[in-house]
């Protein structure tokens, strides 16, 4: 019941938001936009609605006329304003002590990564209420779905290491983004090395 009320409030405030918007966005409701019907209550609490779907031909604007703040290309447009291609985008703003890097085509934990995993594992053992999400990533080379599988292998390596350190499996969630969320947008060895990683997200 509480969840229901909370969802209603979210829906009402969203409706208000779009009702007041002076842009073309407010046409969404008249054109039959489907607010995410599959939203999962336990995952609510994300800032703002993540997903909007539109019947074909009824989105507020075509893709090519969409008002990106940079339309020179997807990779550049996705970088934070002011950042040059190749720089870290800071997508999740995860600090360096929560990032585990990997060698090319490998899910082996490197010796230099152990202290990072160990420090996080100790914190989790000390506080069983901490739930982490291990997010696996790859560099841009290769098929996107195969890279999803490689990213999961990396996240599972970190998970296994944490479980050996005494962390409860119930405290760990694993997701792989493959090459979909690069930390660096360059197509060079330096960017590749920054992208082959697992982020430990609390």
């Amino acid at each position, binding site marked *: 019941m509480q969840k229901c009320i909370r969802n209603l409030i979210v829906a009402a405030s969203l409706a208000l938001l779009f009702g007041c918007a002076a842009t073309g966005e407010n046409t969404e409701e008249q054109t039959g936009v489907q607010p995410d019907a599959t939203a999962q209550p336990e995952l609510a609490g994300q800032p703002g609605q993540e997903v909007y779907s539109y019947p*074909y031909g009824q989105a507020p604007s075509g893709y090519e006329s969409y008002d990106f703040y940079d339309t020179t290309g997807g990779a550049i447009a996705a970088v934070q304003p002011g950042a040059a291609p190749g720089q870290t985008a800071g997508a999740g703003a995860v600090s360096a002590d929560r990032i585990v890097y990997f060698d090319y085509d490998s899910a082996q934990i490197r010796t230099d990564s152990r202290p990072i995993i160990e420090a996080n594992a100790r914190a989790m053992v000390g506080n069983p209420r901490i739930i982490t999400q291990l997010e696996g990533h790859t560099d*841009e080379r290769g098929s996107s779905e195969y890279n999803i599988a490689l990213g999961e292998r990396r996240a599972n390596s970190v998970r296994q290491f944490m479980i050996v350190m005494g962390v409860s499996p119930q405290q760990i969630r694993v997701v792989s983004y493959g090459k979909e969320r690069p930390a660096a947008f360059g197509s060079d060895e330096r960017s590749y090395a920054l992208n082959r990683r697992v982020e430990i997200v609390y």
Partner: protein
Amino acid sequence: MNRFFQLIALLVLYCVGLAQAQQTIDITKGIEDRGIPIAIAPFGGGAPEDIAGIIAANLKRTGQFVPRPSGAPADYAVAGQARPGGSRGWVVQFQLTGAQGAPLLNLSFDAPPNQLRPVAQRISDLIYEKITGQRGLAGTRIAFVGRGGGFWFLVVADADGQNSQIILRSTQPIMSPAWSPDGSRLAYVSFEGRRSQIVVQDVYTGARRTVSAAPGINGAPSWSPNGQRLAFALSRDGNPEIYALDLATQAPPVRLTNNSAIDTEPVWMPDGGIVFTSDRGGSPQLYRIGPGGGVPQRLTFQGDYNARPTVSPDGRHIAMMHRRGGRFHIAVLDLATRQFRVLTPGGTDESPSFAPNGAMIVYSTGQRLAAVSVDGGMKQDIAIRGSARDPAWAPFSR
């Protein structure tokens, strides 16, 4: 002595080739000006669309025609006009003539002014079909994933890249769109809620349904030929395996593979079998299982990386990502002759998808879309402003 070793090496290579009974052909250069010459006269009548220009561009794009100005020597000629009138605002009329001016087509269309472009696409396809006996692609669409401004978009555009319509906008990644066989729905991977799930979206209503949200990977959806089942990859049992889900019954998905390696990217064959990517042999390669599963049969032996299969509508060709010398190409395997052809010069080519007539393959070069004919003779970029990845060519509309 040196020469002797070279000879041995060649012999070994030859024997390896024979053992695999597959032949590799490199077709990475386009063949210019190959095709049937067809003269296209400008359409008179002052229409707001350049109908003759659209027809010429569409026929050129097929790789099977060389459009010429009217009066130039050609095997076929197109002439027509678009003038105000009729019940809907404009009347578009055209004739296709063959050798010695023999009439082949003579048709007219009533259209409102905003439908002149679709009429030009229709005329292009009618001409193509009359001359080649194959269905044309000008009236078809391509779905793709766009990225920009902190969003991921699912977009449906015309096959020439024009008229791109957003059908989904998300702050989380979207991947691997796949059309239902009737062209009314798209299945894709969404990371909303910071976890993967497979969603089926009705293209014309925008209604969405999550069909799989298992722990771990929910990836690479593919529709069965009758549209009743979805195959995809799940890692809920520890590592990625291929599953099939009956969309009507909602029964739990049935597992079709069982191996400690990565099994992913299933695509359905017309006969009900499934081709997928697996690294069970040490590197990613394509394998095939029958309609009910069974022991996978390895299909690819060239290079060290073959992945992301797409199957031609007749089931004869499988196109894929193919790596050699550190570069990714689009390649195609002919299942009848076992011939293996590399179609693109390569770089970061990925995500091939067959056109519904089996003549062309659309793919991504990383941030852009391009198309190549299945014989490698025709290549071209599909111009879309903004990034475009993960293309999926829609089936013919009914």
